[in-house]
């Protein structure tokens, strides 16, 4: 994975010193809150319901064991012993004191981490496929591109005060595991017939109040042009994006209102002008960054491990966990493990300091010192030998992280909601907890099969509800929490925005409503192999509406 050189180290260290100075000026009263707020936001510091919140970047979701251990240390020393992994592959600490934050950033810098641009109207942490560098279906590792983008976008002088936040995601395989088409810019690394690497470029995707699927603006962009093209997009957006209404300020609205063709003309014209300039990427520089992500030194192993097969026969719980949480690795004899931070009744994405320590140890011992954070709020051990799976499982079991529910209905995404978030209109975590308990039975979950349930506590959609197969949005109706249900959303390569199914449900009703939806699916699916989303696409919303709103109400 990427390692800082002197330049990066000096950069991050001086940034910490700069923020320390700003905090001191704030505390001494030299800076008012008005002046300080944009500065703290650019360093990931929010003020939430109960306290400050610090959002730390995990660039493209990749981290090593000492970084994970440091996150645990920060939770223990400065916070309340836990952290919250988010859908943006970041981690949030919910209780830091302002006066401690410079020290926290210094601790982070010591393990090559930072909180730069995790908030504010700038280019945010670049996300990527969490299985990058491990997935069997990968064309090329997207992380070198994400890292180059991370660097270029860091304190880019022109793009720190954009109309609105700007999110970029990169994937390197035809299967989209990063909701790439729901980002301001989505990039898919591809290979052409000549074997050269390039990118397919999408623009104008996003969730929030007006969910939109990104539009393809370039089917093929040579990799050397990546920065020039992104710079052209950002420049056009910065000049023409709306600033009169913050709900219409994202690039998706500019694309929508201007039309892709017209906007593309401007972008391409600017790109033509700058493409042979300083931003053109020399092959050797791309190669130098890519070298950081070179495959680990995998052993030559058979595709099947007898010990593993035997352990599965001996231990049914383990076998189930392997079935759900372990997927194929590009390298024979290895596997990718999803550690689902979704125990029954737990807050999705939360991990305690002790759990972070365990994850760090497991990464170090069994996964070439690498871990990943997924946008589904889970942690991934990307390179585990088949023969080590049982040991990993046992350790996870002991630490309360062996939930065998990856991709199932209880592998819920939920934003912090009204329990923490100052913008929330309703709670999301307690709804996730209730559903997780309701569907806790593993037989029943496995029978239901692949089902993505996603919950947001307000229209900002941090919990990705628009792209949930079942999406739940909490709103406030005259002081009461009300939950709206959308069906049929999908964040993968067959991107779709869920449709609102009808009137919302109270907090007491929402559990039954989800159960009704699931029962309807079970009753109507063609076979056990037809997943929820397929059934929904085949039948449309009507049977679900009929079940949720019996005739007397719709009349």
């Amino acid at each position, binding site marked *: 994975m990427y390692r800082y050189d002197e330049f990066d180290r*000096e950069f991050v260290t001086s940034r910490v010193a700069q923020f320390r100075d700003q905090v001191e000026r704030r505390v001494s009263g030299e800076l008012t809150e008005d002046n300080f707020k944009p500065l703290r936001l650019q360093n990931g510091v929010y003020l939430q319901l109960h306290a400050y919140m610090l959002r730390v970047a995990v660039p493209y979701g990749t981290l090593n064991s000492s970084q994970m251990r440091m996150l645990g240390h920060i939770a223990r020393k400065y916070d309340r012993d836990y952290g919250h992994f988010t859908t943006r592959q970041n981690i949030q600490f919910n209780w830091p004191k302002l006066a401690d934050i410079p020290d926290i950033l210094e601790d982070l810098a010591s393990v090559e981490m930072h909180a730069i641009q995790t908030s504010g109207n700038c280019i945010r942490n670049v996300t990527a496929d969490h299985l990058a560098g491990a997935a069997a279906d990968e064309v090329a590792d997207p992380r070198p591109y994400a890292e180059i983008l991370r660097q270029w976008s860091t304190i880019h002088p022109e793009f720190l005060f954009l109309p609105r936040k700007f999110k970029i995601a990169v994937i390197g395989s035809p299967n989209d595991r990063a909701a790439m088409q729901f980002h301001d810019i989505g990039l898919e690394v591809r290979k052409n017939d000549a074997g050269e690497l390039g990118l397919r470029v999408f623009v104008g995707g996003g969730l929030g109040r007006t969910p939109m699927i990104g539009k393809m603006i370039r089917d093929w962009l040579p990799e050397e042009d990546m920065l020039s093209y992104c710079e052209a997009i950002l420049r056009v957006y910065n000049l023409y994006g709306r600033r009169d209404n913050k709900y219409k300020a994202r690039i998706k609205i500019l694309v929508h209102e201007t039309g892709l063709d017209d906007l593309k003309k401007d972008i391409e014209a600017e790109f033509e002008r700058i493409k042979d300039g300083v931003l*053109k990427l020399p092959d050797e520089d791309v190669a130098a960054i890519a070298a950081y992500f070179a495959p680990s030194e995998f052993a030559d192993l058979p595709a099947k491990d007898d010990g593993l097969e035997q352990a599965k026969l001996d231990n049914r719980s383990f076998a189930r966990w392997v079935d759900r949480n372990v997927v194929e690795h590009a390298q024979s004899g290895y596997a990718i493990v999803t550690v689902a931070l979704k125990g029954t009744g737990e807050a999705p994405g939360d991990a305690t300091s002790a759990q972070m320590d365990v994850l760090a140890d497991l990464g170090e011992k069994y996964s070439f010192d690498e871990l990943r954070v997924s946008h589904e709020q889970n942690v991934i051990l990307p390179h585990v030998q088949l023969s080590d799976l049982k040991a990993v499982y046992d350790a996870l079991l002991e630490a309360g992280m062996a939930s065998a529910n990856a991709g199932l209905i209880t592998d819920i995404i939920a934003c912090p909601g009204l329990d923490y978030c100052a913008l929330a209109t309703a709670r999301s975590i307690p709804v996730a907890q209730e559903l997780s308990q309701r569907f806790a039975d593993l037989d029943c979950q496995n029978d239901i099969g692949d089902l993505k349930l996603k919950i947001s506590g307000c229209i900002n959609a941090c919990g990705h509800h628009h792209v949930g197969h079942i999406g739940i949005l909490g709103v406030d109706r005259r002081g009461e929490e009300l939950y709206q249900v959308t069906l049929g959303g999908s964040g993968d390569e067959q991107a779709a925005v869920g449709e609102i199914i009808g009137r919302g449900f109270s907090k007491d009703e929402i559990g039954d409503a989800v159960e009704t939806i699931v029962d309807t699916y079970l009753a109507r699916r063609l076979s056990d192999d037809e997943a929820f989303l397929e059934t929904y696409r085949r039948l449309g919303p009507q049977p679900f509406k009929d079940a949720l709103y019996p005739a007397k109400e719709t009349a």
Partner: protein
Amino acid sequence: MTTLFIDGAVAEDPWVSIDGEQPVPEAEDVIVSLALFEAQRHALLTRNEGRLGVYLEADDQIDAIADDLGKIDLVALDFPSFADGRAFSKARLLRDRHGFAGEIRATGDVRIDQVQHMRRSGFNALAVHHQPTVDSLMEIKDAGLNLFYQPAIEGAEARSSSGGRSWARRAL
């Protein structure tokens, strides 16, 4: 009170701003609004004495003056608020796309924490109201860092010695 800084040093301002319907003085250096420029374009461009500057509000685009930049000596770009970053891209376009070599002046809400970004985007002059910013600039206390992850306007920056990264820069 506005203090003008040019290339980092406090400077006298020889320019007069004209925006309403008043007549343009024949021999003075004037900064006119875009509306005035468009209304009296021919007369302004053919004056014999006095230099010409144009002031663009945040909603005005560079395209409106692009064809005449050869006869314009100064462009003032407004920052209506700290959060409105359009002028960064405009300065960049003036320097890069149009090769404009005259003064690019930042006006409006000019704050110390953005000064470095302004310089790197192509501004060489700052008209500052905000007193703490004036004070910091007097002390030459720049709030920025010295290392950059992207090329900006070529100026006091060199390619970073850090190998293998064509995009990195270091302040000289």
